[in-house]
C-alpha cells in the first residue's frame, strides 16, 4: 500500500469518534468480519487505528477504497433506525422506570413515537400520551402539546442523544395542522399547484360613484386596486397558504404617534402589549385584508414573515 494512501486512511479514521467507528467500518465494507473481530476497540484510539491500518495493508487498500471511506465519513447522517429506537427507549426507561414507548415508521423517513408517561411509582397513563414525529433526514421533530412539563426535558434529552445531536431547541411555531407545520419548516409551501396567468384585469363594479365623477378618479382607483392585488400576490404567492390558527406577538415598544406629538412623549418605558390573531385559516385571512381595504399593502413584515421565519410566536422590542 502506498505511503500516502496509508496516511490518508489513518487521518480519516482518526477523525471518526470511537462510538461510530464500527458502524462506519461496517458500512465501508472493505475489511472483513473476521478482520474486524481481531481488533480490540477498547484500546486507546491510536492503538486501534494502528491495528486497522495494518489490516488495510494486508488487504492492499487502494486510493479508491480510501476515497470511499472518506465519502462514508462525510455522510454524517448515517442514520440507523434500529439504533435510534433502542437508544431513545433506553434513555427514557433508565430515567423513569414506568414508561411505554412505541414506534411506527412511515414514508418520508419519518418515525412516529408514542410515549405514555408514568413515574418511579406509578404505571404509565395510557390516556395522555405524547406523540413525536421525527424526520430522520432532517434536524426537526414535532411534538404534541400533551406533555407534562416535568417530562419535557427528558424527552428532549432522549431525542437529542438518540439522534446524535448536541442540543434541542423549541421553535416558536405551533399549530394543529402537522402538514402545515411541515410545509413551513421544510419550506415546501411555495409550490404552485395550478398555473395561473398574471392577475386578470379587475372589472370596475359600481361603488356608488357619482356618474359625473371625473373618469380620472375611476382610473386611479383601478390602478390602486391593481397595485394592492399585485403586492398581495407577490407577498403571499399564488399557492394555497399553510394552515395556522394563531399568531401571537409580545410587544414591548415605545408609543410613537403622529396624531399628537405630546402624548406619552416623556415616557421612557415601552407599552407592554400582547396581540393575538386567531382564525380557522390565519394566513388566508391575512391575505384578504389588503384587498378588502382593512390593511395597507404591503402588509407588515411582522405578519408576512410567519412562513419564512417559521414562527408564529414573537417577542418584539424596539431596536
Amino acid at each position, binding site marked *: 500500500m502506498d505511503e500516502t494512501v496509508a496516511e490518508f486512511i489513518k487521518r480519516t479514521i482518526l477523525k471518526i469518534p470511537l462510538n461510530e467507528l464500527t458502524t462506519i467500518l461496517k458500512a465501508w465494507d472493505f475489511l472483513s468480519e473476521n478482520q474486524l473481530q481481531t481488533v480490540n476497540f477498547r484500546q486507546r484510539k491510536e492503538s486501534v487505528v494502528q491495528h486497522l491500518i495494518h489490516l488495510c495493508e494486508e488487504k492492499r487498500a487502494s486510493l479508491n477504497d480510501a476515497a470511499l471511506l472518506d465519502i462514508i465519513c462525510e455522510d454524517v447522517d448515517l442514520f440507523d433506525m434500529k439504533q435510534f429506537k433502542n437508544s431513545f427507549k433506553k434513555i427514557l426507561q433508565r430515567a423513569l422506570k414506568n414508561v411505554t414507548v412505541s414506534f411506527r415508521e412511515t414514508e418520508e423517513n419519518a418515525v412516529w413515537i408514542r410515549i405514555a408517561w408514568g413515574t418511579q411509582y406509578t404505571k404509565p397513563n395510557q390516556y395522555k400520551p405524547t406523540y413525536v*414525529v421525527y424526520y430522520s433526514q432532517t*434536524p*426537526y421533530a414535532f411534538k404534541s402539546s*400533551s406533555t407534562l412539563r416535568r417530562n419535557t426535558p427528558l424527552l428532549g434529552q432522549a*431525542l437529542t442523544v438518540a439522534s446524535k*445531536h*448536541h*442540543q*434541542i*431547541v*423549541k*421553535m416558536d*411555531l*405551533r*399549530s*394543529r395542522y402537522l402538514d402545515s*407545520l411541515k410545509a413551513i419548516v421544510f419550506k415546501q409551501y411555495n409550490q404552485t399547484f395550478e398555473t395561473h396567468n398574471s392577475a386578470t384585469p379587475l372589472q370596475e363594479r359600481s*361603488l356608488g*360613484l357619482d356618474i359625473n365623477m*371625473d373618469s*380620472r*378618479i375611476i382610473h*386611479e382607483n383601478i390602478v*390602486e386596486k391593481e397595485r394592492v392585488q399585485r403586492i398581495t400576490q407577490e407577498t403571499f404567492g399564488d399557492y394555497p397558504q399553510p394552515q395556522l390558527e394563531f399568531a401571537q406577538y409580545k*410587544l414591548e415598544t415605545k*408609543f410613537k*404617534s403622529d*396624531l*399628537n406629538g405630546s*402624548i*406619552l412623549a416623556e415616557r421612557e*418605558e415601552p*407599552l*407592554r*402589549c*400582547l*396581540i*393575538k*390573531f*386567531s*382564525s380557522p*385559516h*390565519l394566513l*388566508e*385571512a391575512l391575505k384578504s*385584508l389588503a384587498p*378588502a*381595504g*382593512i*390593511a*395597507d399593502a*404591503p*402588509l*407588515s413584515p*411582522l*405578519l408576512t414573515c410567519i412562513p419564512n421565519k417559521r414562527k408564529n410566536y*414573537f417577542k*418584539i*422590542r*424596539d431596536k
Partner: protein
Amino acid sequence: MKPPPPKFKRFSCLSLLTSWDYRQTMDSYDVPESTPSASSRPEDYFVGATPLQKRLESIRKQTSFIPTPPRRKVPQCSQLQEDVDPQKVAFLLHKQWTLYSLTPLYKFSYSNLKEYSRLLNAFIVAEKQKGLAVEVGEDFNIKVIFSTLLGMKGTQRDPEAFLVQIQSKSQLPSENREGKVLWTGWFCCIFGDSLLETVSEDFTCLPLFLANGAESNTAIIGTWFQKTFDCYFSPLTINAFNLSWMAAMWTACKVDHYVATTEFLWSVPCSPQSLDISYAIHPEDAKALWDSIHKTPGEVTQEEVDLFMDCLYSHFHRHFKIHLSATRLVRVSTSVASAHTDGKIKILCHKYLIGVLAYLTELAVFQIE
C-alpha cells in the same frame, strides 16, 4: 373549513442542533415609522386612499346616532349605603350577567314578594309539566326566592333593586337548608331619572335586568314577568361606540391593584375566513396613556375617548399596517369590568359597581325609549 380531526392535538416544532449551530432567541425588530401616504400625486383630488378606505375612515369618525352626552362623569369610587349587604354585593361580582332592558312593571309591590315567589314557583313547575325544556333540575325540587337588594341605587328616587333566585331544594333533611343556586336574576335602576319622570305612580321602573344561569330559565321567568306585570324584556346589546366609552371610563378609574389586564377584542369582517384580533395592554401602560390624554378633571369627554382609541389604533397600525378602526370592536375588558357586544357583563371591582350599573341603566333606558 372542516375542523381538525379530534385526535389531532396542537403540535410544536423542535429543532435539533449540532454543536456549530447557534441561534438567537430574541428578535429585536426594527419597527418602521409610519410610512407616508403611498402617493404624492400632482392631482389634488386623489389623496392616496381607495374609496373603500375613505368610506371606512368616515364611518370611524361618525358619531353614533345615540344622543349621548358628549361628556360623562368619571365613575367615583362610590360609598355604598350603610344598609347594603356586603355578602350580597360580593355575590354579584365576578359573574357573567346577560343584560336585558325592561319596560316599567305595572302594579308591582315590594310587600308581595313572598306571594310572587309562590306564584313563580308554581308557574315554573307547570311549564315543566307541559314538557317544555326546563333546566331546573331533574326533579321539581326547586325553590324560588324574591328578595330586595338594598343599596343598589344611584339616588333616593331610584326604586329599590330586587333579586330573584332559583335554588334547588336540598334533598337531605339536614340543617343546611341552602340548596344550590341554579339561576339568578336581578332588576335595578341606577340614576334612572329620565325614565322615572315619564311614568305614572302605578309603574315601577327597573329598566336594567341581569341574568345568570340557563337560557331556558331566563325565558320562562321572563314570560311570567311579562304576563304578570305587562312589561317587556329586550336583550341589551352594547355597540362598539359604547364599548369604547366603557373602556375609556374604566381605564380612568383609580384601582388599588390591577386584577386583570386591559384587553380589547376585534372581529375582522374578512371572508371567507373569520379573523379575531385580541389586543391586551398592561393596565399600568393603559393608565399612563389615558393620563396623558385626559385633560378635564372629573369628566370624560368624547374627544378624549376618541383620542384614546385612536392612540391604540395608531400603535397597532405602526406594527401591523392594519386599520383596526375598519373592524368591529366586540369586547373590552379591564380591572373594573368586562363587557361583550352581545350584552354580557362581568363586574370585578365593588368600588365601581354603581358606576358600571349607571352606564348600563342609561343604555337600557335609551333602548326602551
